[in-house]
């Protein structure tokens, strides 16, 4: 982005302005564009998620606003903006009002380091991965603040659960990332993606058995950090009404949902950049614009596939109990990730430049697992068809 700002200042429309003012304008412009992009992604995800669950659970889902209900999210947004913004009398007013914005800051900050393409990133920080992990920590503060300031039992319990969960699951996530970092020797998002290739066997997912395990640890830990089912205890609606967000209405509650659905895409984008080759495509054309567009589409599709997997998990699995949540983290994920990190380090010492047979082997293994999975699904679909109706209305 800095090159772009320099170009605008030297030759483009901003020529002649003081440098710092020009930078500030460019930053504000990109923040505006990014914010709109996030709203779009989060909104569409909220609609798609409800449709996908509905299909999985043999329901219809929202299909009234627009074709197949495709602009339902817009209607929901407008409805929420028009609603009254209620602050409970017993609530701690300044904190209650500030909490959604704090969560929003932490969530929005993370997007600065999401690499959509070669050069298509707001800031390629030298410490990118660490930055995203750190900044999303502010979301927890927002949720805790919302839970406490609401002055409501359920809200407080939800906030506490959320904090405990996120603080615990940050540890396996951070250690799992290290399995990739020892391979690349850099923390920059673009650096990690450049160390991979477009072909699946050049992705870090299949680089060696340890990164393969790290991917699953990372994905599970991120699902827990994003408060997604099966780890959605903070807002378990059967126990806590809506958890930390119980007392919120109107735009403020909308902001929390925006953070939740937008975070889902961040999860997908992080896993894609670290393990699935990011925006890497074959260099098939010298046209920079076309190449950039294709890279953006490739990155978006890969990360959106993971978003889809998360929806799928949410529609399929039941919620875990608090003790199961904690024992999964501390008794299984943390020790496995430590052993895994040790293995990854030994692998790097043994094969400093990678080991192609292992990559191809891991790739074949991945294909076999996918085929077995698809066979299981197809088997169940075939058996279930007589009792199942694809069109519940008819």
């Amino acid at each position, binding site marked *: 982005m800095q090159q772009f700002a320099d170009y605008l200042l030297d030759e483009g429309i901003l020529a002649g302005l*003081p440098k*710092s*003012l020009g*930078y*500030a304008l460019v930053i504000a412009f990109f923040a505006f564009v990014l914010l709109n992009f996030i709203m779009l992604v989060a909104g569409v995800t909220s609609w798609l998620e409800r449709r996908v669950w509905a299909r999985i659970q043999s329901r219809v889902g929202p299909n009234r606003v627009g074709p197949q209900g495709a602009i339902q999210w817009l209607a929901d947004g407008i409805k929420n903006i028009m609603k009254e913004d209620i602050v409970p009398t017993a609530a*701690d007013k300044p*904190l209650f009002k500030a909490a959604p914005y704090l969560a929003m800051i932490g969530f929005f900050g993370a997007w600065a380091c999401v690499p959509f393409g070669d050069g298509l990133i707001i800031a390629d*920080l*030298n*410490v990118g991965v*660490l*930055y995203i*992990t*750190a*900044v999303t*920590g*502010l979301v*927890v*503060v927002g949720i*805790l*603040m919302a*839970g*406490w300031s609401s002055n409501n039992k359920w809200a*407080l319990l939800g*906030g*506490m659960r959320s*904090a*405990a969960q*996120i*603080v615990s699951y*940050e540890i396996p996530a951070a250690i799992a990332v290290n399995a990739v970092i020892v391979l690349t*020797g*850099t*923390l920059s998002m673009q650096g990690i993606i450049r160390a991979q290739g477009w072909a699946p066997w050049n992705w870090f997912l299949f680089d060696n058995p340890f990164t393969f395990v790290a991917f699953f640890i990372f994905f599970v830990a991120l699902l827990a950090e994003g408060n997604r089912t099966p780890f959605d205890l903070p807002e378990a609606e059967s126990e806590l009404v809506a958890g930390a967000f119980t007392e919120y209405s109107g735009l403020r509650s909308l902001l929390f949902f925006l953070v939740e659905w937008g975070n889902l895409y961040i999860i997908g984008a992080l896993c894609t950049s670290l393990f699935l080759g990011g925006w890497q495509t074959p260099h098939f054309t010298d046209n920079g614009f076309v190449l950039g567009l294709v890279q953006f589409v490739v990155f978006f599709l890969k990360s959106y596939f993971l978003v889809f997997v998360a929806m799928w998990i949410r529609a399929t699995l039941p919620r875990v109990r608090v003790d199961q949540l904690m024992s999964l983290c501390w008794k299984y994920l943390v020790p496995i990730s430590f052993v895994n990190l040790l293995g990854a380090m030994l692998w790097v010492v043994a094969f400093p430049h990678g080991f192609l047979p292992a990559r191809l082997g891991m790739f074949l293994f991945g294909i076999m697992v996918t085929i077995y999975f698809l066979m299981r699904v197809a088997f169940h679909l075939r058996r279930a068809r007589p009792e199942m109706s694809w069109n519940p209305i008819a």
Partner: protein
Amino acid sequence: MYAALFYFIAGLTVIGALGVALSTNVVYSAMSLLAALVGASGLYVFLAADFVAVVQILVYVGGILILTLFAILLTHQIAEIQVSNRSVGRLPALGLVVLLGLAMGAAILRAPWHVEPLAAATPTTYGIGDSFLNQYLLPFELASVVLLTALVGAIVLSRKELRE
């Protein structure tokens, strides 16, 4: 522009720190601590210490502040302050603060401040990792052992006694 940004971040840090000390509500103190910690991280960015800045947020905001808030929220009726130690009054405290302030002010005025031009942001991560694992390996490992001991000690102190 840089100066304005610096004064904004420095102001955030100082006001946050004042809020921690002066607020009568412990939860408000914790929230002011958030401002102070984020501001300090911003100051690290001005010093071109990117790794330290991010780790500051990761460890202090993501870990320590959350755990502090956790402890505050779990404590019953923490908003009602009952100062139990009144053996020394406010006047001697004021005297001490004035003395300390004078000493620090004198030190600030007399120190030969070394002004450096704004440093270009160079990656620091590699250097930090390299010195941890080469030159300062023994202190690094010793610190790890100390932290591990503290961890085990905390668990021993806080767990419920198991009786046969």
